[in-house]
Each structure stands twice: as structure tokens, then as C-alpha cells.
């Protein structure tokens, strides 16, 4: 365990930038840039540790739906995505890309419609967004 946690660090970083730096900047490009950075840091604070659970749930749901529909399991993604330090998380992300790819161009049906709604709701929760009432 390492304290402060990543979330605590991001919260502190955002708070310090907003109260100490943003408040001191005049209107202009630098202020607009910092405002955007503070907004982004705030979102990262809300979601930084959700990625493993999000990818695992998404992968399991897509795999189960494809299997139920009788489709072959797609092979692992050829290119591992950038931006991951943990090999296990990188593998989950690569698997997610392969599964997304497998969903392209499938003939439509009720199971896929239901999967799409579940995926959309998961994605909204992951980015910290509102889910429309009927999609939840």
C-alpha cells in the first residue's frame, strides 16, 4: 500500500492547480489550457482504478454473447495497445480490442442489441458519464 493513493494524488494535484495556479492566470490560452487540464485530472481521479474491472466485465459479456450465438472465439489482438504498465491489464485491453473487432459486421439480432445496450451503459459508467434513462 502506498499512500497517498493515485486517486488522492490526482485530487490534490487538481485542487492545487485550480486554487493556486488557475486563479492567478489571466484570461487567455494558458488559462483555457489549465482549465481543461484540471477538468481532465478530475475525471482521471474518478476513473483511474476502474479500468481492470471495466475491461474484464466487457470481455466476459462479449465472449458469453458470441458463444451463445455460436460464433468462434476471436484470437488475441495482434498489436498490444500502448499506455499500460501492467502486463495483465495490457492483455485485457488487447483482448477487448479483438472482441470489439469480432463484433463488427455481425448480422444483427436481439442478443446483439441487448449486448450493445449493456456495452453502452458500461462505457458511460467507465468514463463517468450519465446513462440515458432507457439504456440503464
Amino acid at each position, binding site marked *: 500500500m502506498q499512500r497517498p493513493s493515485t486517486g488522492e494524488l490526482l485530487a490534490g494535484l487538481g485542487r492545487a492547480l485550480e486554487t493556486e495556479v488557475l486563479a492567478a492566470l489571466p484570461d487567455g490560452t494558458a488559462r*483555457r*489550457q489549465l482549465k*481543461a*487540464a484540471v*477538468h*481532465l485530472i478530475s*475525471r482521471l481521479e474518478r476513473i483511474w482504478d476502474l479500468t481492470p474491472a471495466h475491461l474484464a466485465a466487457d470481455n466476459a459479456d462479449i465472449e458469453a454473447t458470441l458463444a451463445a450465438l455460436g460464433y468462434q472465439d476471436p484470437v488475441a489482438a495482434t498489436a498490444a*495497445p500502448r499506455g499500460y504498465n501492467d502486463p495483465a491489464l495490457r492483455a485485457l485491453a488487447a483482448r*477487448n*480490442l479483438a472482441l*470489439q*473487432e469480432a*463484433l*463488427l*459486421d455481425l448480422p*444483427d439480432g436481439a442478443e446483439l442489441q441487448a449486448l*450493445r*445496450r449493456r*456495452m*453502452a*451503459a458500461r*462505457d*458511460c459508467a*467507465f*468514463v*463517468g*458519464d*450519465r*446513462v*440515458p*434513462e*432507457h*439504456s440503464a
Partner: protein
Amino acid sequence: MNAATASEDAALGARIAVLMSGATITGLTRVFGGNARRAFAFTAALPDGRACDCIMLCQAGGSHVESDTADEFAVLHALNGSGVRAPEALALDAGGTVAGGPGIVLARIGGEANAVRFLKLDAGTGRALTLDLADATADLHRFDWQAGALARHPRWSVADPVAAQIEAWRARYIEHRAEPLPLMAWLFDWLRANAPRPVRTVMVHGDLRPGNFLYDGAAVTAILDWEMAHPGDPAEDIAWIYRAMWSPERFVPLAEFCERHAARAGFRVPPRSVAFYRIFTEVKFATISLAASHAFAAGKTANLRHADRAAKVPGCVAQALDWIGQWEREIVDAAA
């Protein structure tokens, strides 16, 4: 202003003078031109004796909206003197000789464009202004663009403008996505399969919303940013104006806006078309967000507002799926 900037501005003014056939340029100042353009305000004494307050808009690198300044100039030139509330187009710098990126010189019109202040207006002013926006939108949609040179322009002479728009946005989604996004792929297929035939093929502004029109009091003085104009369904503009992020719904309900538009335009946009284009606008906004995010990731822009724009996509997709559910339920109800 330091000496280097003053010298740079003097050179800029001299290049604008050449572009405007020897006009005399005074009072050149740099002004905010939005996320994708640099802007310069000045007064031009034109060779025909007119003095004109002008603004020059020049494309900056890393725009998240693919556009062609020459196309925008052609649109504005077609609108000159038409009664549509658009700034007069005075000169085109297609090669970017003035400021490095393609640019256009427009007559400067009074008013403010601030979307946040518009949405915070008192109810009475906001209502009057929104109804005037309906009138300005209707004026645009009844403009006979097919009567002039624009009809022969390659971008304006497509056989199926609605399909062309959907496919153009699909191509941008494919170009800019950083992952397959199968939900987006399916939404594009849905749009192609369900697109209504336009009640008439009009000039669609393509980005008509608070922030892209000037207003003074309760009157729209000019519609700005014509770079996404194209032939299409008038419902597209109405749906974009009422996109939740900047919707004037609290001033004027969508149905009343459509009534006002119909009274002025002389034709009625079917509610079903508006419903379709509300779905289209979510897919379009998601695609613009992907392009913005891609531009930042590729180092084409340092604008941090674009860094995380891909996070807007899930909300757009969920909203589109929700409305498609309503669309399908209405079909079932109508058949029952």
C-alpha cells in the same frame, strides 16, 4: 505589443492588402477565432471607396473538423445579398499566403456569439432570440441554392446528399477511431438503413448552434462558421440546434421551434425527420470527438480540450441507442 509582433502584424497587414486588391488596412488586431482558427480584425478601405470592418479567419493546424476554406467561401459568396443572415464574403486566401493557413476575409458584423451567456439569458429575451433563430434558420432553408453556381460545385452536386453525409461521417469515424468501436459502426449502418427522404433538399449549415451565431439583444445578426455547410435535410440543422449540450429548449420547446420554422420557411419539417436527425447528431458529435482526440494524440494540436474528447463518445452512443429504442417503439405503436 513588442517590436517583433508589431513588425509581424505590419507584414500581415501588407499581405492582406495585396489579397484585397490594394485595400488600405488599418487597426489590425489579433482576436480569438475559436479552437481551430486564428482570427484578425481590421478596417479595410476598399478600392471601390467603401470602408469596411473586417475579420480574417485562417485555419490553424490540427482542426478536428475537416473543412475546405474555399468551399466555405463559395457558400458565403453564394449567400451574399440573399437575405440569409451571413457575413459578406470579401476575399479568399486559399493558399494560406497571408497567415500560413487557408483563410477568408469577411465583413465584420456586430453582436456577440457567447453560447454560455446566450443559455443564461432571461426567459423573455432567450425566447425572443430563439424564435428569431428559428426565423434565421428558415430563411437559410428556403434559400434557393440550386439556382446559382453552387449547384455545379462538386460538393453540392451529389446524387444522394443524405447518404453522402452519413458516409462522410462514417469515413471520418474510421479514419480517427483508436479502437474498433462496434457500436459506432452499427449506428452508421442504422442511419443508412433508416434515413428519411428530405422534405426538400436545402442548404444545411451543419454546425448551427449557440456559439455559431451573433446576436444583439433579441435578434440574430449573423450566422457564423459555414465550413460544414452542405446540401441536405433541414431537420439536420434543427436537431443540431436542439442537441442537449447547448439546446435552447428552456426558452422554446422543440415543437414550437419547428412550428415557427414552418411558418417562415413555407414548408413543414416532419417530426419523424427531426427524430432521425437527433440520432444522427449524436453519432456526428461522437465522430467529431474522435477526430479531436485523434488530433491531440497525433500531436496535431496541443489544445487540452481535445485530449479527452473520446470520453464523450459513450454518452453519445447511449443517447443514440435510447432514441433508436423510442423510434422502434413508435413504429410498433403505429402498426398496432
